[in-house]
């Protein structure tokens, strides 16, 4: 079948503003959007730029806006879009470098600001630290994050104000706050309690809807809010 792909292009060396460019591509219903982009780049327009690496939804390179919603291009099948016209645009809320490539630095800066690493200065045992399966299960959902930025760039609070720490950073803080081996939970809660922390979340759920790993992001944020309110980490 023939598919029309409309891509928001922007070349900083030539263009004043981003503009749409349309391509016709042959495709199968089981093709992914990434296949179409590769085909366009290979056969029609080599200057099209986008990030991709693993091509099966694990590395998080190719988050972009497909038909208005944030998704991974390599995890979006044409048949699931139910449309012969596909609009592909870069993520919102981050500066565009070129075409579908956005500047990820602000995103990673927020990520780094929540101490996303295990803090435990106690003498470690010779073997592993013990952790029951239930304690492990407590933060399982948020360990799945691949830092693709689909959630943060779907968040109206983040669009409005880039200072907001964003869902992805909170998810990664959550992963450690609720880890029974960690000792810096209260420090992280203090960071997230700030003006641009969790309370800028207005439970809009765009993040949960956008997450390609199906993490219950808003739930994680809710749990962090509750932990701030009660100090209870269960």
């Amino acid at each position: 079948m023939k598919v029309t792909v409309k891509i928001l292009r922007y070349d900083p060396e030539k263009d004043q503003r981003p503009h749409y460019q349309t391509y016709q591509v042959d495709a199968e219903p089981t093709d992914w959007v990434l296949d179409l982009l590769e085909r366009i780049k290979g056969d029609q327009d080599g200057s099209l730029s986008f990030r991709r690496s693993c091509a099966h939804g694990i590395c998080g390179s190719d988050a972009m806006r497909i038909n208005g919603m944030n998704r991974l291009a390599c995890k979006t099948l044409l048949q699931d879009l139910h449309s012969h016209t596909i609009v592909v645009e870069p993520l919102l809320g981050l500066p565009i470098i070129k075409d579908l490539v956005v500047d990820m630095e602000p995103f990673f800066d927020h990520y780094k600001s929540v101490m996303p690493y295990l803090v435990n200065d106690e003498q470690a045992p010779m073997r592993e630290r013990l952790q029951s399966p239930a304690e492990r299960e407590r933060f399982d959902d948020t360990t799945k994050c691949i830092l693709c930025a689909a959630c943060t760039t779907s968040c109206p609070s983040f669009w409005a104000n880039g200072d907001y720490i964003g869902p992805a950073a909170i998810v990664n803080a959550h992963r450690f706050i609720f880890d029974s081996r960690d000792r810096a939970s209260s420090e992280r809660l203090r960071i997230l309690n700030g003006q641009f922390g969790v309370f800028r979340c207005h439970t809009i759920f765009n993040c949960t809807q956008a997450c390609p790993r199906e993490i219950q992001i808003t739930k994680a944020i809710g749990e962090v809010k509750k932990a701030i309110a009660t100090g209870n980490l269960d």
Partner: protein
Amino acid sequence: MKIHQFDVVVVGAGGAGLMAALYASKTASTAVISKLYPMRSHTGTAQGGVGAALGNYEEDHPEWHTFDTVKGSDYLGDQDAIEFMCQEAVTSVYELEHMGLPFSRTPDGRIAQRPFGGHTNNLTGKPVRRSCYAADRTGHMILQTLYQQCIKNKINFFDEFQVLDLILINGVAQGVVAIELATGEMHIFHANAVIIATGGYGRIWKITSNAYSSTGDGVAITLRRGLPIEDMEFFQFHPTGIYKLGILITEGARGEGGILLNGKGERFMEHYAPHVKDLASRDVISRAMYTEIREGRGINGQDYLYLDIRPETVNKYAALDGRTQPDGSPYRVTGDDILARLPDIVDFCRTYLGVDPVEQPMPVQPTAHYAMGGIPTNLLGQVVMDEKNTILPGLYAAGEVACVSVHGANRLGTNSLVDLIVFGRHAGLDAAKYALGSQFKTLPNDVADFSIEQLDRLRKNKNGTEKISKITEEMRTTMMDHVGIFRTNEGMSASLTKIRELQDRFLQIKIQDGGKVFNTELLNAWELGNLLDLAEVVTISAIARTESRGAHSREDFPNRDDQEWLKHSLAWSEDGKIRLGYKPVTITKYQPKERVY
């Protein structure tokens, strides 16, 4: 052009690179240069687990792990290195756990382990639970944990910088030249020690589990700088890739009791590996699958088979095998157990196949997966440059890009992660020690010229007629057809001719994108050049080796020939020609025997 100075630079931010950076940064100033953001590296796709003889469920010893690895390597692995790796694996896994890696847990709170292909109890010959896992996303967790620790240690990251060349001054490594993707600007990283950890080159083959970015840049760079590469003819094909897509279904699926079935619904692995059946090592299973398909026993006569992890199938065969739980009760699983232990696999199948593996079998075929060969190194990750293992000062390699060689002719499942944590760590430690004890040399003014020239040659081809996508496609097809699981002299020679033709056509490539900012087309072209160079070396090394061993299996020479071929091959690129050489295999405890599973 910008010049940076660090004690140690690490090229590549996958598991090995981050591990090396983490340990190097404990004493030396360290920079990590990577063409991707660290979280995008291919380590993240590793699924099943990291092998270490912790013995959390049952008796297990590093010596058993050593023997299994030696046997898995078809006796081509260097046994001193293997022994070292298997001993170190245990402490390294504990260290990862202390860094915060969220392993799955046993009921009493220890790291959970599962059986994996080729890992056995040496006394009984039965599969042993040795693979330490975090659901089916162990690689993802390792990558995350290491990246988190690197952030904690405030390591300097240069993300989205493509390294184009290695700086060697009077036979000593002195840094790398890289291009910044976002601006197109050249950067020189001046360093006393360089650790290459750029990963593999599975993109040479058509059906591959490898990422678009696995283009063997590190190997190609050192090859161009006159260094040898080792054992390039050995490339692992993983038995269970999703049909046509090549996306990996972890061996853990079989570890949890999954069964391979042919078109007649038979469990064909019984005929090929009567003892461990579906948990034989990967080369054995891939060959068996290929044989089944070729003899017309594919599903509906087509070129794929079924991997079945439906609870009823698993329980049926587990009962036939007499498999038990750790507490001695019969092994049984439910649909929910499958979902809990293999969540990502279930997700992949639902997304890409529209198949729910709890209810339907998954169509699979072998997929190009892992490079056993690469840059030759010793136990400490130091790169060696000839048959006598002479060290090149200041240059290190670790991970898939390196060939220690612990994997020999065939890698065991879980050992890639073991490789990168053990040798990544030692490369980092030793590189820092070396760098702090040596002086920076003055860089000549023309260090970046070779890199600039490579890119300019691609860019200036305004009247070119060839397309990157076309050449890539032809290369991948010919390599899959002729230098895949089964190889013949005839097929490989045809492939070599084809690759050389493609190399010529590559010079006529046309780059449409004339810009500097994020010019992915230019860099894709450069990567294709690497792949073509490596494809040539792989084919030449494979033609030369007239025996079948591990992943290299020749129909015209179906037997292993220890008299003639118990040796590592080395390949140099000299004036555009490939020269081969050989070096002996280190054998300590285990004399080569016939390999039966």
